[in-house]
């Protein structure tokens, strides 16, 4: 039987050193809540694990106008962070609905992103917050917007020698937001659909909006056309209906164990409508 190699990196330099040496062969693992499920069910059989859970990538900090989260930051540390609570309550809401306490104690934000599940529950919130990821390799560093990061189910723009080091999220304390996840039960459940909406309001006018959805396309998506419809508009119920219809055109849901494409289409419209109404409250005519 082939031996498995377990590499434990002590810092980022060592991670990228090992990644440049082993490339695709080294399966990056932090909390293991996604990786080990796939390994244990033989969906994946990597020869080598590169453990980055104790390599100094567990941090949440404020830098200029951004919040920066280390890739190996545990999901429960994000919920507990006063900094995130203050500046990114949408992310707290999204992460709180993920899995269970035990899984959130192990699972990391970088892992949730890099696993690249269409139903990754941190991602719609991060898309709506206009987050980016910092990608590093031995020879380079680049910043990629979250909306450019995914290329398909389980697929990302990461090269074999690269890892996600941190996530950068711009602070905008005036941003209005709303979030909804539908699962098949209240905990330990993958999304049937999840939607995050953010809006920048000035008086009655929506200056900017982002509508992001999970589990309704091959990757989590920003509904760009629908979002654009809201820009520089006074939002009324007619416009909201238009936006919801546009969202339905931008998604490409499938039937799976958690729900049908029919249900997802229908929910995408209803949830988007409800979330926009929730944000505008009495401000909407």
């Amino acid at each position, binding site marked *: 039987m082939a031996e498995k190699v377990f590499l434990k990196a002590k810092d980022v330099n060592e991670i990228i050193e090992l990644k440049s040496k082993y490339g695709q062969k080294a399966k990056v693992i932090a909390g293991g809540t996604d990786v080990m499920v796939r390994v244990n069910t033989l969906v994946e059989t990597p020869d080598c694990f590169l453990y980055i859970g104790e390599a100094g990538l567990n941090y949440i900090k404020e830098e200029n106008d951004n919040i920066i989260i280390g890739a190996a930051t545990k999901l429960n540390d994000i919920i507990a962070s006063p900094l995130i609570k203050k500046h990114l309550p949408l992310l707290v809401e999204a992460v709180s609905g993920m899995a*269970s306490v035990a899984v959130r104690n192990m699972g990391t934000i970088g892992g949730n992103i890099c696993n690249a599940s269409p139903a990754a529950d941190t991602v719609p919130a991060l898309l709506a917050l206009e987050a980016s990821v910092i990608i590093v390799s031995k020879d380079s560093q680049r910043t990629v917007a979250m909306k450019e990061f995914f290329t398909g189910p389980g697929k990302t723009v990461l090269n074999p020698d690269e890892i996600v080091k941190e996530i950068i999220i711009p602070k905008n304390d005036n941003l209005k937001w709303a979030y909804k996840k539908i699962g*098949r039960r209240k905990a*330990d459940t993958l999304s049937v659909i999840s939607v995050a909406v953010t809006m920048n309001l000035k008086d009655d006018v929506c200056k900017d909006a982002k509508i992001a959805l999970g589990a309704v396309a091959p990757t989590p998506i920003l509904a760009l056309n629908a979002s654009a419809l809201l820009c520089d508009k006074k939002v009324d119920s007619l416009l909201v209906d238009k936006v919801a219809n546009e969202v339905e055109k931008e998604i490409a849901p499938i039937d*799976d*164990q958690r*729900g049908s494409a029919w249900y997802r289409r229908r*929910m995408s419209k209803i949830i988007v409508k409800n979330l926009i109404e929730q944000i505008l409250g009495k401000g909407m005519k």
Partner: protein
Amino acid sequence: MKKRGKGVALIYYPTGMAGGGDTTQAFVKIKPDGGADLFLGSCEIGQGIKTVACQILSDELGIPYDQIVLHNSSTDDTGICTGTFASRVTYFAGNAVRAAAADARQQLFEYAALELGVTPSELSLQDNKIVVANEPNKSMTIAEIAGKVNWTMGKLILGKGNFWKEPGRIIDAENGQIDVITTLAYGATLAEVEVDTETGQVEVLKLTNVFDTGKTINPLLAEGQIDGGVVMGIGSTLMENANPYYPTDNLKPKTLGDYIIPTTMDVPPMQSFIVEYPSANGPYGAKGIGEMTANTASPAIANAIYDAIGVWINDIPVTPEKILKALESQNMA
């Protein structure tokens, strides 16, 4: 829009095999130190038969619970039990243990009578002692007589007992009656739900349950049985899929992770009450409540959904899609 409704379900449920013919056997050995070995083949599946059987033996023999060793790991060296099914184990095993205990007690009394110079019929059990009627000072502890039986008299006390329901498939020619069941237990659940008419999601707000144990042998276990059974009912009503699968047949669950059952987060506030309407032949009047507790949630929730939105969903699990499609056909009608 969110709409609320209430629904009730009533149930009566037989204990043991319909038609009878099933048996459960037990035997008990009195040890020289006054403790007892209980040999019982009934399978523990979390319902608590190990605890309940030892409780009954302790009560019947005046032997402290912690001096009873239960042998329950192999059908080769225990009594036959037809099985843990049909809500039958507390009823059947309880009766078998009681009968085995009565046999062992009678033997204890016979040996104690010799020691005390009285007849066995003058003896009774009080505070873990064998005492002589009308002569309260004349007594022996179980340990004293058990030691003598084993070491001085050179005897063995082995009590045996069983409970068997005679097959009842013969119809009385005179009146057409048939005695097929051992006993009936009764129960009810009141469900309060909220249905989201846009998403089709059903939220169970509260469940109130009443179940008839006949006689509760262990209140904590009985309450746990009710809570657990009702939560299983929530699962089968709202989540669990057997063929046809949700949303389509080719997407059936492949692992237990795919097979959705309720988590603790899905359990609504529940209030459960126990009613004791004793059975004629159960141990102390006890009945079985194992299975029926899992059966009331579905009709109660389905009734509550009807009360909330005015459409019947007649097949479980009640998925959000079924709710939405039922509402659609109602609107078209």
